[in-house]
């Protein structure tokens, strides 16, 4: 699968402070890439470098296979972005702010309508953005980034300040863009629950600016050790069989549990129990939330190259 965004050992920051440390991002085409990390991990810095707003100290960036900054600014025709908080002219109305962005993207009149509908901001477009609430500003900022249904959408903390309705609209709009237009979406956030609902791929940054993991969402679940929960007809026999095979079994709760399991291990356990004539009622990896996986990754894994 080809990558829309590729960075090669990208390092950099502001002044002498190094925020990013040799990160090599691979954002596959038509994916929704959840770029996760704690505050200050360097997510925004990475996005700025991808757009050519900030020069890396070391490393290279390629957008659609073309080197940055050499391909700027023409390559930006294919991208929409929202970096940090929305940049709006507060003395102008929402419609005027959209019009400025439409003209600077060389889009036709009416091209803004789809983004306006998607983010549900039609009712307050005639009001000055200085009067907007934080959530309204965020919606307008996302709508501006979405103008023209770009091939690549870079959204930095787009969920900030959005209420439940706004979050729902944003998720729907992102999934619609991704499905209908094949838009690749890089979504930086520290709101794991929200990202979990839309992301097909995940990248996890540590607080020190290292990229700890990246790859498909399922791969993250597979690569991070989880608890394998088992329910059988003959509990004591199952414990004996498993322990004799070298597994450490936690039998303190209703379900037997093998901590630190992977999906490969689940298959092995199942075969072992069945071949011993033990009836297996339930055998599943504890489906950890993205947040739980994030915590595991950032606390137990130093570095992975998942691709």
């Amino acid at each position, binding site marked *: 699968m080809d990558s829309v965004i590729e960075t090669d050992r990208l390092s950099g920051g502001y002044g002498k402070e190094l925020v990013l440390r040799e990160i090599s991002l691979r954002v596959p085409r038509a994916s929704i890439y959840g770029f996760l990390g704690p505050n200050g991990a360097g997510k925004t810095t990475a996005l700025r470098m991808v757009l050519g*707003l900030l020069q890396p100290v070391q490393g290279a960036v390629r957008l659609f296979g073309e080197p940055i900054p050499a391909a700027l600014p023409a390559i930006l025709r294919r991208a929409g972005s929202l970096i940090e908080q929305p*940049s709006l002219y507060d003395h102008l109305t929402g419609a005027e702010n959209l019009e*400025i962005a439409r003209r600077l993207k060389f889009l036709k009149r009416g091209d803004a309508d789809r983004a306006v509908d998607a983010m549900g901001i039609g009712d307050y477009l005639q009001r000055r953005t200085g009067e907007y609430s934080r959530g309204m500003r965020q919606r307008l900022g996302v709508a501006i980034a979405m103008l023209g249904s770009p091939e690549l959408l870079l959204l930095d903390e787009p969920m900030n300040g959005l209420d439940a309705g706004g979050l729902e609209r944003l998720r729907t709009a992102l999934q619609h863009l991704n499905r209908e237009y094949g838009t690749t979406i890089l979504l930086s956030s520290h709101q794991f629950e929200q990202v979990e609902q839309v992301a097909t791929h995940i990248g996890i940054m540590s607080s020190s600016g290292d990229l700890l993991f990246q790859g498909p969402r399922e791969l993250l679940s597979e690569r991070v050790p989880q608890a394998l929960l088992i329910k059988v007809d003959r509990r004591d026999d199952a414990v004996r069989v498993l322990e004799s095979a070298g597994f450490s079994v936690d039998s303190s709760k209703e379900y037997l549990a093998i901590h630190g399991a992977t999906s490969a291990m689940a298959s092995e356990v199942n075969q072992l129990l069945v071949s011993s004539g033990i009836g297996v009622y339930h055998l599943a990896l504890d489906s950890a939330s993205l947040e739980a996986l994030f915590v595991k990754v950032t606390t137990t894994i130093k570095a992975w190259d998942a691709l």
Partner: protein
Amino acid sequence: MGRSLTTMITIGWALLGTEAIKLRRSVPLLLAVLAPVLAIVLELAVVFDRLSPPFGSAAAKWRVLLQSGWAWMALCLPVLIAFEAACLANLEHAGKQWKQLFAFPIPRWSFYATKMLFCGLLAWIGLLIAVPGYIGDVLIYSAVHGLGLWSSIPWLEILGTAGKACLASCLLIAIQTWISARVSGIAMPVGIALAALVVGLTLLPFANGKIAAWYPSTLPLAALPTNNPRALYSPMSAVLFGFFGGILVGAFACWDLARRPQSN
């Protein structure tokens, strides 16, 4: 060649259109209208403060009566330019717009060039409002004192003088836009401009005005017709220096600003 020209025209059109939208209900536009109105009112007071009406031909009377107006204009123009440049740049600084602008498929330098162009346009619009106002002031004075200047308005001379002041101010426009784009806020760029103007006015009497013809803040003043027979410069040299200096410094400023990383 043809394609790149078309692209440049498309980009230029988009930039002009968006900059015009940004001016709606904005301080820079308000300034361009209010500043000359203030100058017109002041000029009226100055004209009526004369002890006696001027003598000589109609042309000579016009020259004398407009003299203080031109001086006002030459002093106000650098201040207006400083405010316009700072307010225009602040439209982007205030909303942290630069990063958003640079994420559009448009060369960075062209955003700064547009700012310079609009700073000049707004200052010159102010001049276009001030000049008829000055003429109105003189005509009111003429009516009160029965000078009969209605039929002898020296349009060519007036437009020529105003035009020269505009061209001479290009260097100042480039410098102030440069400073304003680099420094966030209004106080610092305007403070620098006012300090520079005071320095320029202090230097004015030295070397029979020669320094004024090479000093950005006093170039509009140096571009005015001079009655000083000992003047060591020609107003046209101030016009040429201001205009071509503005183009050169403007180009360098655009290059400098575009290469800098944008932190907001």
